């Protein structure tokens, strides 16, 4: 499977929360963390995110796999950021100086990226994409965006199926990938066919929608009620944001 919703099945407090609340908090939290630069606030943010993952009772191994992917990219930053900043040198590697501001900057990025990602795993990856789409719908996100989002998601699966059909078609005729021109050409054909099929499909789906009276507006069948747990969590989430803001922008500490 290329596309999985590995974290949606669960019955934790986080899974049961109102999606609008989860998305709202995830957005505000990410924004605050993204503009923060002090270590106390960044560590607090990371702590909050980890706490959410614990509350959501996610499979730690799966969560770690997702984190590993992002941290693979972050490691690249560590290869050049510490060397490219001006400032006090901590130590030297050959002719290059590892500067203090460089290391601080790289550490800041690492913390931020991980905190935001962990929070998103806990809050957003725990809802079905469809729920997410509808929640965005009710948050007054432009209709076109939500529509685009839901349809893309739906067609990821169709494209995936088409992809499986195509790979099966080449496999049953004895195709074995290798490092040769034949392999590259076959892959190029596969990619081309996939693209063609997907766009033809998109066209027909639009026609099918027209046949059912589509005039450009999407309607959502869902309305979410607000539970006691939602209110309690909203209070804690607001407090968490306030703490982050205070740590970052006041001189208490």
């Amino acid at each position: 499977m290329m596309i999985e919703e590995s974290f949606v099945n669960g019955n934790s407090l986080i899974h049961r929360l109102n999606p609008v609340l989860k998305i709202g908090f995830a957005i505000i939290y990410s924004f605050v963390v993204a503009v923060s630069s002090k270590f106390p606030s960044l560590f607090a943010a990371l702590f909050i995110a980890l706490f959410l993952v614990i509350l959501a009772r996610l499979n730690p191994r799966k969560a770690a796999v997702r984190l590993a992917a992002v941290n693979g990219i972050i490691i690249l930053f560590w290869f050049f950021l510490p060397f490219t900043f001006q400032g006090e040198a901590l130590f030297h590697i050959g002719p290059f100086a590892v500067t203090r501001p460089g290391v601080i900057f790289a550490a800041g990025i690492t913390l931020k990226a991980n905190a935001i990602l962990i929070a998103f795993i806990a809050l957003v990856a725990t809802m079905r994409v469809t729920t997410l789409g509808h929640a965005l719908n009710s948050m007054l996100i432009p209709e076109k965006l939500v529509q685009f989002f839901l349809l893309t998601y739906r067609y990821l699966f169709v494209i995936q199926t088409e992809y499986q059909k195509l790979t099966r078609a080449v496999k049953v005729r004895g195709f074995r990938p290798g490092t040769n021109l034949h392999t590259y050409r076959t892959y190029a054909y596969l990619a081309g066919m996939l693209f063609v099929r997907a766009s033809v499909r998109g066209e027909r789906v639009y026609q099918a929608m027209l046949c059912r009276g589509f005039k450009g507006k999407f309607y959502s069948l869902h309305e979410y009620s607000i539970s006691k747990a939602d209110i309690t969590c909203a209070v804690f989430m607001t407090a968490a944001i306030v703490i982050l803001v205070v740590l970052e922008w006041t001189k208490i500490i």
Partner: protein
Amino acid sequence: MDKDNLIINLTDISFSYPEGAPLLNNLSMQFYKGDRVGLIGPNGGGKTTLFHIIMGLLKPYSGKIEIFGKPVREEKDFRSVRQRIGLLFQDSDDQLFSPTVLEDVAFGPLNLGKSVDEAKVIARKNLDSLGLSGFEDRITYKLSGGEKRMVSLATVLAMEPEILLLDEPSAGLDENTRASLIKVLTGLDLSYILISHEMEFLDSTTTSVYIMKDGKVFMNGDRQIHRHYHIHPHSALPHRHESGFGKKYTDFLA
């Protein structure tokens, strides 16, 4: 036949896909209220294309389309046609695009201006009548082929159309699903045109047959035709029939 009941009237329709050979060639066809017509013809003969022209999804380069007694030409004209004629697509994956079954079936009614509650009621009613109660929250892309077909039919019926255009509804169905589809279709108070290659299926769901060949529709078929056709399925070679009914039409099938 009586003019009042003439629902679809195509005159001299010609059509070809860009860079394709002419596919429909001065095609004329009439369809009357109450008719239950089977449309047969070779693969690639243009049956699906014909349906899409009736729905205004494709534009013929010449010819006249009259539906419900009015000429239809532009997108605006077809918009009201689409509320009264329901098209079941050949491939259910084209038809189902909402994440869940209930949302997909409610999509049409919502577009027609129904409230969320009304749309849900209509959707549930249609799912129930097709034996799909309990399917509301199923994920559309995870349904089996037969389930997808039945849900697609529910999405079309939820628009409360007067006429159905059914593009190979029986293709690839297992015995049970086919039987329930036959039961649903024969129980409906609707006129329809139904494309199928399966003679038994046509026999139990339609009362006459149109034959599509060489870019034209031949409408003289009656019940006996497809009985006849059934005896010679997939007949690719010209053949003659010396006795019995339908002699005239076998030429079309040859």
